[in-house]
């Protein structure tokens, strides 16, 4: 099993041995489709794990399995030492999830929605209110905090979702395409929030993304997933070296077998 605690992409990081996420042959099969095939991965406390792969490769399935929303077909996984099947409530208590498709309540304001999420996680009332105000202010939503979410733009909705993921201070955060819909400055802000939380509070992040650039800058460790199979795990440097390429983008294309995709790019025109 690949478990590397080498610092990459950030400063002042020391290798640690506390494993927060551990999967053993985790598999999910839908009918005849194997969405996830024997996933073995370990992520240490306070690390940021980037999970890269093309659409439909099984990233969202992995996140749903690890956060206890889906039941695995076989294999096991533990989060902070809790089993995802037998310790479901504890797993949910220590995790926060930013889903790929937003489940916002459109007839609530940002403050009300975050209150709702905080209440679901039993966050103390005074603490919750203080956190909501601060996080909305950091995300630049304080002027619109009392407007109904149905009038928000996609980017603003994504900001609220990011806030809802962090509001109960989870130990492990799953982010499924966190920078989707976000403008460049907000992407940078979200990146900084992730880095600061990991560094200062030891929060572990498991991030699904298509943004290679984002992963390269933020993640300590990266896993490349193709058709449900984990192709490789390691730091950016290790993946680049192993694949004998120049950078992560090239490594990604080579491992995914898409490096020649540029050839025949106009063939569809007939």
């Amino acid at each position, binding site marked *: 099993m690949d478990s590397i605690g080498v610092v990459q992409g950030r400063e002042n990081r020391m290798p640690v041995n506390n494993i927060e996420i551990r999967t053993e042959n985790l598999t999910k099969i839908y009918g005849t489709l194997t969405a996830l095939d024997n996933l073995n991965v370990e992520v240490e406390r306070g690390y940021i794990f980037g999970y890269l792969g093309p659409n439909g490769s099984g990233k969202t399935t992995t996140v749903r399995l690890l956060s206890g929303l889906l*039941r695995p077909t076989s294999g096991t996984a533990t989060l902070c030492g809790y089993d995802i099947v037998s310790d479901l409530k504890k797993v949910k208590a220590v995790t926060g*999830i930013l889903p790929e498709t937003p489940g916002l309540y459109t007839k*609530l304001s940002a403050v009300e929605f975050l209150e709702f999420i905080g209440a679901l996680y039993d966050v103390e*009332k005074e603490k919750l209110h203080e956190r909501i105000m601060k996080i909305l202010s950091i995300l630049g939503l304080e002027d619109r905090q009392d*407007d109904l979410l149905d009038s928000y733009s996609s980017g603003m909705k994504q900001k609220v979702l990011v806030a809802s993921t962090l509001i109960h201070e989870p130990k492990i955060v799953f982010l499924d395409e966190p920078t989707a819909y976000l403008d460049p400055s907000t992407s940078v802000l979200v990146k900084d929030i992730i880095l600061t939380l990991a560094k200062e509070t030891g929060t572990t992040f498991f991030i699904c993304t298509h943004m290679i650039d984002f992963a390269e800058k933020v993640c300590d460790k990266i896993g490349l997933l193709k058709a449900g199979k984990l192709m490789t795990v390691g730091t950016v440097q290790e993946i680049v070296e192993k694949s004998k390429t120049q950078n992560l983008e090239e490594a990604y294309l080579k491992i995914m077998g898409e490096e020649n995709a540029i050839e025949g790019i106009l063939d569809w025109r007939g």
Partner: protein
Amino acid sequence: MERMILTNHWLVIAKAEYYLMSLNYRKKRKRTFAILLSVSLIWVFIAPILVPFLLDTYFSDYIGIFSTELPGLLRQYTLLIWIIIFFMPISNALQELKISQWEILLNADVSTRDILVGRFIGRIPHNLILFLFAAPLALSPLIAIFEIPFSGQIIMYATIFCLIVPTLWVSNVIASALQTVLGNNARGEDIAKIVGTMLTIILMFPIMFSMMLPESLAQLLSSTFSLLFPSTWAADIISWTVLFQSGTGFSQDLIRYYSGILIFDASLCAVLLILITIVFIVVGFGTGDRIFTFSLGARTERITTVGKENIIIRGVRRVFPNSNGTLIVTALKEFYRKPQNVITVSLASIVSIIPLLTISSLNLGDLLDIPILMVYLTMVIISIMYPFIGGVIFGLTPHLENKNQLWVIRSAPNGAGKYIKARIISMLISSAPMVLLPTILIIFIMQFFILESIILPFVALALIFSSMMIGIGIGTLNPIYEVTKAGKKLASFISSFGLLFILSIVPQTLGLEYLTPIIGAFGAYALLSTIPMFFVGIVLCWAGTMKFGIPEK
């Protein structure tokens, strides 16, 4: 610049619609469709043969019932089918304004008429199979009981077909017109949901009416007034076919009696049906691109800012100061900010005063001097009406917009349990005054004894609470979202309504005899109306919460 001309736009749209309709068997579309079509065609022929075996010993009874009530019953069932076919596509279309789809179509310079025709034709394969399965179900008992020959069967199927096709077409036109109008409105989505909810309610009433008072509806449809409905013309053609092609034969007296009800003869009904078909088709074609046109108008967004919390919300927060209170408050705010829910609650308040109106308008004469009888009568009426408010109106109203919201709830520890609990309490806060107020008014008007006056409000609360748990249980076992199609909502409505109806009648029928001598008629009725419903509600709600919370397989 050269303009690219796309031909057969409607065909492209029809194909897309067909793919959408056959989504469930998308991997083997052609093969599955061929199998379904073959099976449904075989079904047309074997259904009338199977019916006598299924009806078995009661076969002769059915001949009696059908013979005496044939025109009214046929008009009743045809009207129900017609209403469902007419309103359901409109209700479905209004749940979802397809603005993003229009943008693609309009970008390719597609006309409104193309969209109308394409959508209609794309649904034909799906609707044909539905027709071939459903029509024999409806007609086979008649064919079997009255020994209708093949020629008569052809007339019957053709009649139903002629009723359904133009109805579907005109329903498609109205749905499209409504989408066009509402799509260009800043509050279009909210208005669409209001109209969709109202249509679902309209759909529910005739079904409810036919379940509770089938004979009254049959009598109503035997009147001249019903001759205005196309469904009546179709039903009457079938009645005439049965009269003149039946192998069992009808007495001259019965034929004379039927002629008095049917009024229009078969040929006139057929002419009317054909005429209305032509009118529907012509009007549909004519309106598309003329009266309404799909276009991308300036849809301005409206920003709504929430105000200060009102006294009720503040009161709830004071009573429930913990996180449960926040969840209840959120549930209340979310529920009442949706206009379609406000419509539903208005309906509930109208239904809630029916017992009061019924009791105060009854001409009871000497019966008023027998207080226990009045208490008993009140109990009977509220035990039928209040569960409808709790179970169907409040219990079944969807609180989640889509499945993504369910993921959010499930990701919290015990999220499903907390959510359902908050939902029950928030709905109880909404519905309790609605039943308590009329009940207390009845108590004052009728001047009941103290004991009954104390117990009756509790019975009302128990009824609303128990029935609400039944509705919520059914709605969570088979999750209903706002975007859920009208058909699935209707299925949940029928199962909830059926179960509540049974629980409002059966326990009393079975248990009154044994309990009355022990605790008196009033006590027995109170217990039998509430206890079974409460336990069924608890079980269903518990099962629903479990299913809501467990990880998906």
